[in-house]
């Protein structure tokens, strides 16, 4: 019995080898896409993971300031006295702009201040040239910095800083594991020299501890945490790389979405093609039933056929995808020290995705094959479709597409809904719109087909009625074109609405000044205030905090911390042009000065209803403390500024939304007083370039709001380009389905076309007829694609609201939809073109001979 199923399946595929080949190519393309991306992500992750150990060194435990401040040096001395500690080292780093003496080009790198001898015990470095630093006037460069600067041992570098430049002698070049963009370029100096550069004497960024043998890090932390001031926290070194790993976890999420997109694109093509095949072979099926074939055998043969196609596609696509990924790795192997390491889990998932696509693709044809009654199938050629089937498809389709929007109304946390959306909601929505393509084709065959007929000069009834005669296979083929367009619509709608409806409307200070997330010394703050053209200035202390009542972000991927922004209330409010949504400004200022009060950003109010009169409990160094909410403001410009500078660094861990409080509260409850950011307001006639130059001379960086906007726009454009590429691939995969259908269609209707030629229809008429069909089929894809795209964009809008509190007004990208629809129709026509060309060149007698 099983042999019979296998035999039937193979016959299904070998009977029309050209079409089977096209199907295999479709699945292979989907597999190539997912496997290549999966392998590259795996390789990147491996490189990062292998390097984290190297970067972290041999330490077991790290001590840091909980609210992003500094750890005082005496703490290091205390720690060194603990019996469980074998070695402890303190580090203090600072970003600096350097120049090799005698050359002009400045270079920004991170000066890591260390105690050289002790440091080498905890984190041994291999010196390729020269030796480790020994005195305050020496510096050691990492290999890539030395190569970049063409600097050698013995050369001198000048550190450009406030006041006179400082010269240091290069004494060594050390090897460093490469993480490329994930790392800042590094140089080693003594702790004293780092203090000079930052202006923070005796402050350590971290203390790294190597425990004596046999001491468990977790137990050590539990025992010793209480011996430290409350604002300090200890964590195991294993968790030190968690931030980077967490950043990489988002790639898993993207991979799942990519696999879903590719699998569904391939799956829909398989459904359309196998359904067409089954419809054409109903007579054969009937004969098989007459001679004793069981329903399940016919059904199983279709599922097996789908699986064979999928496995063949995966078998062809996976090596090509791997080869492509290896090629990319080979070209960038210097930056990927972990070697080529395709993540087996994601790779398996990609291949499983292809196989599931085949399985799903075979299911509907299996149902069609199994439900064909022998006599009915023997006689039916243009059997009218059953209304019941239409109704069922419409109902199920509507239910599926409503699932995700309905889920957002449930009283569950946003995070659960997001994960549900990625793993269930998105596939269900894909399926829903795919099923709705069936009733939609019926609607278009009545509404659009007459228009297309008129435009193409076709007999009005011929096109519409042909489409309605076998709506399922046409509709499913149209449905297969859905995903590519949907992606285009989503990404452009979200991108434009986000940028146009939210980002462009943000009010920002004229400029932000920072030192790559390092602390800004009091001396430098004062120097900035003295620059000509700076009318207003507001130093800001900011750090991440945990709010009990309201959390943005996704666990494991995007931490749920929010930013506590503290400053001098008056100058901050005066210069940041704040919109008051709730509360009275004068009263709020007064209340903030009294302490234990915050103003929340509008996003908090939008997402959690947390407004004036409420309280928010923050995790402070004194334990949980309730802060009164005294107003709701819109100062998203500051939010974005903070996020912008943090794109590559620690502030990527912070949510876009902020709480605003006083510096006094920051010091009292979070022991944090260090300036990280300075907001600048320029005088009307200020010379921005001159100000910029002076800020640079102070060793700091300045970004104007214009620059931030330009950067954000470029970033968004790049993102949209990447997404458009995926959409393009999806369209290519779907177009193979269209080509398959058109070939099948022409093969099935050769005789009918012959008759049309025999009664005087020109070959051009046939071409127009098939083109007309293709246009209406593609029209189905256009409508479902646009609808799916809009639904996905609206879900994205909801996710932005719940996870980031961002509210943007949705703007439908009509031009993108128009171009996308033209692309769908054009590519479908292009896919149909070869088959059409053959049809046009076939003589009427040959077409007529098809029946005999």
């Amino acid at each position, binding site marked *: 019995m099983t042999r019979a199923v296998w035999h039937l399946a193979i016959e299904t595929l070998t009977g029309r080898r050209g079409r089977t080949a096209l199907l295999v190519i479709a699945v292979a393309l989907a597999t190539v896409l997912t496997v290549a991306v999966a392998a590259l992500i795996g390789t990147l992750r491996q490189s990062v993971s292998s390097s984290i150990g190297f970067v972290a060194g041999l330490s077991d435990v790290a001590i840091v300031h909980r609210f992003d401040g500094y750890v005082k040096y005496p703490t290091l001395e205390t720690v060194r006295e603990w019996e469980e500690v074998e070695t402890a080292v303190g580090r203090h780093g600072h970003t600096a702009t350097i120049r090799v003496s005698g050359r002009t080009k400045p270079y920004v790198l991170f000066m890591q201040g260390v105690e050289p001898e002790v440091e080498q015990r905890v984190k041994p470095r291999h010196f390729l040239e020269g030796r480790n630093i020994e005195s305050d006037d020496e510096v050691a460069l990492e290999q890539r910095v030395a190569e970049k600067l063409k600097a050698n041992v013995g050369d001198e570098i000048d550190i450009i800083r406030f006041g006179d430049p400082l010269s240091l002698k290069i004494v060594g070049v050390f090897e460093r594991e490469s993480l490329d963009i994930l790392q800042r370029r590094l140089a080693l100096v003594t702790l004293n020299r780092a203090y000079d550069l930052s202006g923070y004497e005796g402050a350590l960024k971290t203390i790294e501890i190597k425990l004596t043998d046999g001491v468990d890090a977790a137990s050590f932390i539990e025992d010793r945490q209480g011996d430290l001031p409350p604002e300090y926290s200890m964590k195991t070194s294993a968790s030190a790389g968690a931030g980077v790993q967490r950043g990489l976890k988002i790639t898993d999420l993207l991979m799942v979405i990519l696999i879903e997109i590719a699998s569904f694109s391939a799956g829909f093509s398989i459904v359309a093609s196998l359904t067409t095949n089954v419809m054409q072979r109903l007579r054969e099926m009937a004969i098989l039933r007459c001679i004793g074939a069981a329903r399940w055998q016919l059904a199983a043969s279709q599922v097996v056929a789908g699986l064979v196609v999928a496995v063949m596609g995966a078998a062809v696509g996976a090596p090509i995808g791997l080869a492509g990924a290896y090629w990319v790795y080979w070209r960038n192997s210097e930056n990927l020290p972990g070697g080529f390491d395709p993540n087996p889990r994601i790779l398996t998932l990609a291949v499983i995705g292809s196989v599931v696509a085949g399985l799903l693709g075979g299911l509907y044809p299996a149902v069609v094959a199994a439900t064909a009654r022998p006599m009915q199938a023997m*006689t039916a050629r243009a059997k009218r479709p059953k209304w019941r089937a239409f109704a069922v498809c419409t109902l199920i389709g509507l239910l599926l597409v409503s699932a995700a929007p309905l889920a957002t109304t449930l009283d569950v946390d946003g995070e659960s809904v997001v994960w549900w959306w990625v793993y269930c909601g998105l596939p269900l929505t894909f399926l829903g719109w795919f099923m709705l393509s069936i009733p939609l084709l019926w609607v278009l065959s009545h509404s659009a087909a007459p228009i297309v007929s008129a435009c193409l000069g076709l*007999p009005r*009834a011929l096109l519409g009625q042909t489409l309605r005669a076998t709506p399922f296979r046409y509709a499913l083929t149209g449905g297969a074109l859905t995903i590519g367009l949907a992606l285009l619509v989503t990404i452009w709608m979200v991108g434009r609405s986000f940028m146009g409806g939210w980002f462009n409307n943000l009010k920002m200070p004229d400029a932000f000044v920072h030192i790559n997330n390092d602390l800004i010394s009091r001396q430098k703050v004062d120097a900035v205030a003295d620059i000509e053209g700076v009318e207003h200035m507001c130093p800001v202390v900011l750090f991440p905090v945990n709010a009990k009542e309201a959390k943005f972000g996704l666990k494991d991927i995007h931490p749920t911390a929010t930013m506590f922004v503290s400053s001098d209330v008056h100058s901050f409010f005066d210069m940041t042009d704040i919109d008051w949504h709730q509360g009275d400004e004068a009263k709020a200022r007064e209340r903030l000065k009294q302490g234990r009060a915050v103003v929340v950003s509008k996003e908090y109010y939008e997402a959690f209803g947390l407004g004036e009169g409420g309280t928010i409990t923050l995790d402070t160094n004194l334990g949980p403390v309730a802060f009164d909410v005294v107003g709701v403001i819109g100062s998203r410009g500051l939010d974005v500024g903070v996020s912008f500078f943090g794109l590559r660094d620690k502030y990527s861990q912070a949510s876009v939304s902020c709480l605003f409080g006083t510096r006094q509260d920051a010091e009292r409850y979070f022991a944090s007083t260090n300036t990280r950011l300075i907001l600048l307001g320029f005088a009307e006639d200020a010379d921005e370039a001159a100000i910029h130059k002076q800020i640079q001379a102070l060793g700091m960086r300045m970004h104007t709001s214009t620059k931030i906007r330009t950067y954000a726009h470029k970033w968004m454009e790049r993102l949209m380009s990447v997404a458009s590429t995926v959409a393009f691939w999806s369209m290519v995969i779907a177009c193979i389905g269209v080509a398959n259908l058109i070939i099948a269609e022409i093969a099935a209707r050769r005789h*009918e076309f012959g008759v*049309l030629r025999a*009664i005087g229809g020109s070959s051009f008429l046939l071409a127009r007829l098939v083109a007309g069909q293709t246009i209406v089929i593609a029209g189905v894809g256009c409508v479902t694609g646009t609808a799916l795209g809009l639904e996905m964009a609206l879900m994205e809008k909801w996710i932005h609201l719940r996870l980031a509190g961002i509210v943007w007004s949705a703007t439908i990208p009509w031009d993108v939809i128009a171009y996308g629809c033209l692309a769908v129709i054009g590519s479908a026509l292009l896919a149909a073109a070869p088959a059409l060309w053959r049809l046009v060149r076939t003589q009427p007698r040959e077409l007529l001979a098809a029946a005999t």
Partner: protein
Amino acid sequence: MIRLAQVVKRYLQGDAVVEALRGIDLRIDEPGYYAVMGRSGSGKSTLLHLLAGLDQPDSGLVLVDDVDLAKLNETKLTEYRRRGVGVVFQQFNLIPTLTARQNIALPGVIDGRPRKWIDERTDELLDALGITDRATHRPEALSGGEQQRVAIGRALLFEPTLLLADEPTGNLDASNAEQLWSLLGDVAKEHAITVLMVTHEPAAAAHCERVYVIGDGLLRGDFEVNGLDTGGVASRYRDLDG
């Protein structure tokens, strides 16, 4: 008027070249009801395809109403098929997705005729062929005889001077076949056109005025039916076909 002179037509069948017509000559000067008889593979269907403008000869002359079909380009040939000739096939060859009325109207729609003209002409034909009450049915809902009447209606929409029928009763029962043979005769008389029916059935040929016998790609001869019954036709056919 139909005239074929030294018409040769060859086909490739696998690697072998098959000569379906080997220099056939045939001439029909007057409108009427004619039969072409021959065994399977004798070349009679090829002859019909050439006359229908579905195919072109390798050499020789195919004249219909003094027009040399071999010299027509694709556009002219398409127009000829649309208006100059009607073809009725053994398999009926109706468009399955269209109703009887739409099938009959189809050549007019393709030709871009005014809707009014098409409607009037279609009504006339439906009425003349006795299938008005079946006008809105699709082929699947029609009997074989009704389908073949629809096919005749479609062929006659433009009142061509030549109506070709290729084994038109091959899929019909005896009663329906008898009715159809008579119907074709009536059409030839009433419309004063030439009806040329390819058949291998003497009973069909007995309804015609003259029978042309083809064998091995050549015209073996012809005879007038003139009162001959089926047996008589069969006997004359055997004499000529050998």
